[in-house]
């Protein structure tokens, strides 16, 4: 032995898991959805995604280096996830300048203002997305029509998302009729499942998102509590509305597969940093997101409620953490 002995407090054994591994795990889980969206929206989707990811990483680096004067930590991969998810909830035909602005807000306001990874109370990607949505409602609600793989970067034809069509027409005709109106051309379930609908970049292909969910569950990146409680709540709530009045409400399955609900429930509500820590807390949080989502979708001004619902429940996360504790060992003694 020629070196000095190392001394450190116990434990001396560490698991192989690490922050970058978890983050890149999410990136892998998002890959199918990215491929699907490139298939439907063409290279423009890839362009928006790359711009978003690259600018998020660059902003993180610049802010850490020159404003916070800290050691830049872009290697941990969290900025990549933020960039990806931000891009995933933007329309593919959004001007790139706005994509960059969104990244700046997501990283600068949503994350770095609070001290960087791990400190932000709100989901950074959603902060960026909602900022853009509230600032540029026109551009943010103009969707390209999915038309199979193509190489054009700017898609002039714009269509609507299924939910916005529903929102527009609830008062005019029964849901049945909306669904079958040729002019409105609502996508059917199989189109929803494979992703052939108008909408944000990453929200369209249900199968790809579910694939990612399975991957993340198996790799133990996330637990089932948040996604399942959100989806279940939405299903139950919309189910009740639907049974009560099928004329005026879409069925639960339609709600589950549209409007970025899957994207939000699987990838964005599960963001570690801004979601509750305990399992019980996660379920409360998930139920809250589910209820608010349906409220906004059905009764609010916006056709789309997931993004706001997640941000609103993000705000309640500290309270949930404060009042909902894991059950302590030996707390209430129940001896058999």
């Amino acid at each position: 032995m020629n070196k000095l002995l190392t001394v450190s407090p116990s434990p001396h054994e560490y698991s192989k898991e690490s922050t970058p591994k978890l983050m890149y795990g999410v990136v892998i889980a998002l890959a199918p959805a990215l491929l699907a969206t490139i298939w439907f929206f063409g290279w423009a989707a890839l362009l928006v995604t790359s711009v978003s990811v690259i600018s998020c990483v660059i902003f993180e680096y610049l802010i850490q280096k020159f404003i916070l004067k800290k050691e830049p930590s872009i290697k941990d991969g969290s900025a990549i996830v933020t960039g990806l998810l931000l891009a995933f909830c933007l329309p593919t035909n959004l001007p790139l300048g706005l994509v960059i602005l969104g990244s700046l807000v997501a990283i600068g306001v949503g994350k770095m203002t609070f001290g960087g990874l791990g400190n932000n109370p709100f989901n950074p990607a959603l902060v960026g997305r909602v900022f853009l949505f509230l600032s540029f409602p026109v551009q943010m609600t103009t969707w390209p029509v999915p038309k199979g793989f193509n190489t054009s970067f700017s898609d002039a034809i714009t269509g609507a998302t299924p939910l916005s069509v529903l929102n527009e027409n609830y008062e005019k005709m029964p849901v049945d009729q909306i669904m079958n109106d040729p002019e409105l051309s609502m996508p059917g379930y199989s189109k929803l499942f494979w992703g052939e609908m108008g909408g944000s970049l990453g929200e369209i292909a249900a199968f790809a998102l579910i694939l990612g969910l399975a991957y993340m569950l198996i790799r133990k990146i996330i637990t089932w509590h948040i996604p399942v409680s959100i989806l279940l709540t939405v299903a139950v709530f919309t189910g009740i509305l639907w049974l009560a009045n099928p004329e005026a409400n879409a069925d639960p399955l339609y709600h589950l597969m549209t409007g970025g609900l899957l994207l939000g429930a699987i990838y964005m509500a599960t963001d570690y940093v801004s979601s509750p820590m305990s399992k019980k807390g996660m379920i409360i949080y998930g139920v809250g997101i589910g209820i608010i989502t349906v409220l906004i979708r059905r009764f609010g001004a916006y056709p789309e409620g997931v993004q706001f619902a997640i941000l609103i429940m993000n705000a309640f996360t500290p309270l949930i953490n404060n009042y909902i504790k894991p059950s302590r060992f030996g707390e209430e003694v129940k001896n058999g």
Partner: protein
Amino acid sequence: MSSVVLITIISLSLLGIIAALILYFVAQKFKVYEDPRIDQVEEALPGANCGGCGFAGCRNFAEAIVKSDTFDGLNCPVGGGETMAKIAEILDRKVPEVEPRVAVVRCNGTPEHRKKTSEYNGALNCTIANSLYTGESDCPYGCLGLGECVDACDFNAMYMDSETGLPVIIDDNCVACGACVKACPRNIIELRKKARKDRKIYVSCVNEDKGGPARKACKVACIGCGKCEKVCNYDAITISNNLAFIDSDKCVFCRKCVPVCPTGAILELNFPPRKTAKKEQEEKVKA
């Protein structure tokens, strides 16, 4: 005068009078005893009840300040300095004048003086390392070099010297708040009387081991030989647990003890170079 003006006057005055009367009588009836100084302090406050101080209202602020013994963290932003001075007067509270002190680090275990015998790889916190073991050298008393004292300093008066691995105190910034003294798990830092031109003479060691082990762990450790105690004419030096201590209230900066120390554990700082020392050195060079 038009009727509107008349009605205005009547209604408002009535309202005012009624309010005043009710308040007065209710206040009389529901009186609760309280420290009268609270009233006085409250009076001195702006009464805007704005919450700027962090309290729910001026009265709460007054209560807090009367109860507390110091002004730490208590300030009224609306009233500003004038108001705070007045409160100090009411409460007859003055910061007691103390003679200026300054912190010194009583360890000189630089890498060249103190051999590194292990490598620490835990949380960068002196208390944690201290509870674990002796630290990276064999001296169980000396500085661990993880800078908990520096973190504790709110006045930018300390930094870690990356070469020596020891904390350094910037005398001009040090306000002798004692935060570092409290923070150090090894009780290395001491507040000493501040002297002219920032001069200092102190034993830069806290090792209480016997001479042998102490010396083995660190070349400049105090071995408790007692030579300095003997040469000191002012009873400023005492030795206990194999360690010398110079009382800064008694020391007159004669510097006699410094050259007699066989290990060089006593440091003199900010003095002009001494002649004898030079001579000695020359002699050494000759020898």
